[in-house]
């Protein structure tokens, strides 16, 4: 699977354009400032990622060092407002989990974790849809103002950041399926195929190509 299709797939799955990929202008005043993503957060994100993509017969997101990957991506590829939404969201993840399951995330069982994340996903979808609605109106005003500006002075519209869980899920899928374990153990990867066959037999259950 080509990288662009992976990104398209993740976009479809999470209902939002994937941040830090080819197809999105993260339109904002850029900044290289890093936000504080603590080792505790990284450890928590490893577990959240592992709940989304767990170890089965093959390693899961934790083995792909998904927390560390998220830290790099958020620091380098996210805009300041996206960074803020991400860290603020992840900071309250444990509290929300307690409210929902009665336990901090790390103490919850797999079933409880999954149930909680499914709840978060529902919440994220709702919130993202609301924000998109509001953004559409704002974008119209923005475009109108922009059209009166010279080309050089035009600014890109900065959309409201997605719900933090949408970000976490995107990063988990992107990070896992581009990791060494994801590409070579869960999927199949051949760096130098050497030939082309456009009608190779496929049997149900055969792994997909990573690239």
């Amino acid at each position: 699977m080509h990288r662009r299709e992976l990104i398209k797939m993740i976009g479809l799955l999470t209902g939002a354009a994937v941040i830090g990929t080819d197809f999105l202008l993260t339109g904002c005043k850029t900044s290289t400032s890093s936000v504080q993503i603590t080792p505790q957060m990284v450890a928590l994100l490893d577990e959240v990622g592992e709940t989304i993509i767990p170890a089965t017969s093959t390693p899961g997101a934790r083995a792909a060092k998904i927390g560390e990957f998220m830290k790099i991506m958020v620091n380098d590829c996210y805009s300041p407002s996206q960074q803020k939404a991400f860290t603020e969201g992840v900071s309250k993840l444990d509290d929300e989990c307690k409210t929902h399951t009665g336990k901090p995330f790390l103490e919850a069982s797999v079933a409880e974790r999954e149930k909680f994340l499914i709840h978060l996903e529902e919440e994220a979808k709702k919130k993202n849809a609301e924000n998109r609605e509001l953004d559409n109106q704002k974008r119209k005003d923005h475009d109108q103002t922009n059209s009166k500006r010279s080309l050089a002075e035009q600014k890109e519209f900065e959309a409201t950041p997605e719900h933090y869980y949408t970000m976490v899920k995107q990063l988990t899928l992107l990070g896992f399926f581009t990791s060494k374990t994801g590409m070579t153990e869960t999927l199949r990867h051949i760096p130098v195929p050497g030939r082309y066959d456009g009608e190779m037999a496929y049997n149900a259950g055969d792994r997909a190509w990573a690239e």
Partner: protein
Amino acid sequence: MADNVYDAIVIGSGISGGWAAKELTEKGLKTLMLERGRNIEHVKDYVNAGKESWEFPHRGGRTQQMIEDYPVLKRDYPLNEVVLDYWVNEKECPYTETKRFDWYRGYHVGGRSLMWGRQSYRLNENDFEANLKDGIAVDWPIRYKDLASWYSHVEKFIGVQGSRENLAVLPDGEFMKAMELNCVEKEVKKRIEAHYNDARKMIIGRSANITEPLASRTNCQYRNRCWRGCPFGAYFSTQSSTLPAAMKTGNLTLRPFSIVTRVLYDKDSKRATGVEIIDAETNKTYEYKAKIVFVCASALNSAWVLMNSATDIWPEGLGSSSGELGHNVMDHHLKVGAGGTIEGFSDKYEYGRRPTGIYIPRYRNWGSDKRDYIRGFGYQGGANRGRGLDIAEATVGSKLKEALSVPAENWGMGMMGFGEVLPYHDNKITLNKNVKDKWGLPVLDMDVELKENEFRMRKDMKNDAVEMLEAAGVKNIYTYDDTSAPGMGIHEMGTARMGHDPRTSVLNKHNQVWDAPNVFVTDGACMTSGSCVNPSLTYMAMTARAADFAVSELKKGNL
């Protein structure tokens, strides 16, 4: 021979410059090839060619820093971690936009021959007659037959894979064994061709990827990582093909970091005498002398060089006497098309990553077809089997992982149009002397837009794609018509067009600047009209033809 004197100077080392260097050196001329950027050595300097996704910190994505550093590149896919080194430093080399123009530049040895899409098509007979028939712009001073043997010459040397189709709209060439259509493409082809009684064809995209060994180059290994640079030399680039040939003659001197500032011109002899350069690293100025100069700096920069030259005689630059220099900017317009999914191929998959797709040659305004616009478009696209699109149920956990680890049930099939843009006199570039680049040189200002003919064509480009996909049994069809700002086709053309008459064109039928016959412009700048096919093969053929003419004129003492 003094060390700054050569027989020939070639400005630029990309697709056209590389060909000029090869042809001129093989014909015995001591040739200096000037490249404004750094050297990139074949294989050795393709630093990302062998890397896997996980070896890139952002997995091939883009950082906020990259977005800040590349205000133009960020507008589309070219900005990413994998090929970042191959794009121009926009801070050092700015330009201005009266109207939005997406200019994607590669300033290094090989130019955009390293990153090009490799699609290789001949223009057809009608393309060369179209301006005359339509009564627009000026007539091409050459016809298909003038270029046909040069297309063959080029194809044999670079290696083009493709299928022979015997179509007037897309003349066959000297092809290597064609890459295979996959099982879905074969079926879609069959259904489309049956539905339109062969008035529309679907073929493998002809590309400069070799399917058999050629010289010291290895055949394609189906990695589809071409634009990182190919360690097998399996696609045509200056580095893999023309540069080694030119080097082999012993007649080539390659000078990187050489920004040509102007062509030197002697008004008494009415000839260029050489060029002036700035060394990009030391900022020192040098002059090089030669009997002939090939300007192959890419369409817009070739015009820039001319506009910055001989201004004491022609204030608007060498070759400006017609008033056409820098005008008639063309590109191809694209990013409009459709796609969907097709059932019935769940027991088939692909092995290998084929570096080309399908091509649907132009059929609009062809034969008896007549539309409310002139010219036409072709489609590029293909079928493949993605994954993970049918898993609405699982959002988390092992079921999600499993669903994303196998291919999707159904294949996807898509096509995107590439349309001809007409040559409009008021689509132009000019020197902006108020803005300077890192070396204090004036920059280009872009004033180019798509017009009514292109917008009308885009409606067909979208609707026809849907109609053909429906005819082929494709389901869940989606369409798109995204902004296509000029430049995004990365097929800039027309800024120093060829013509019959020095009053209305910059170049004659041999690519000589009317005002300086020992100056040849053979890159996209020379195009009198744009056709709808990818243009690089034509630049190569045009360059080889002009080089042959230049050397024979030189021998006759005419230059």
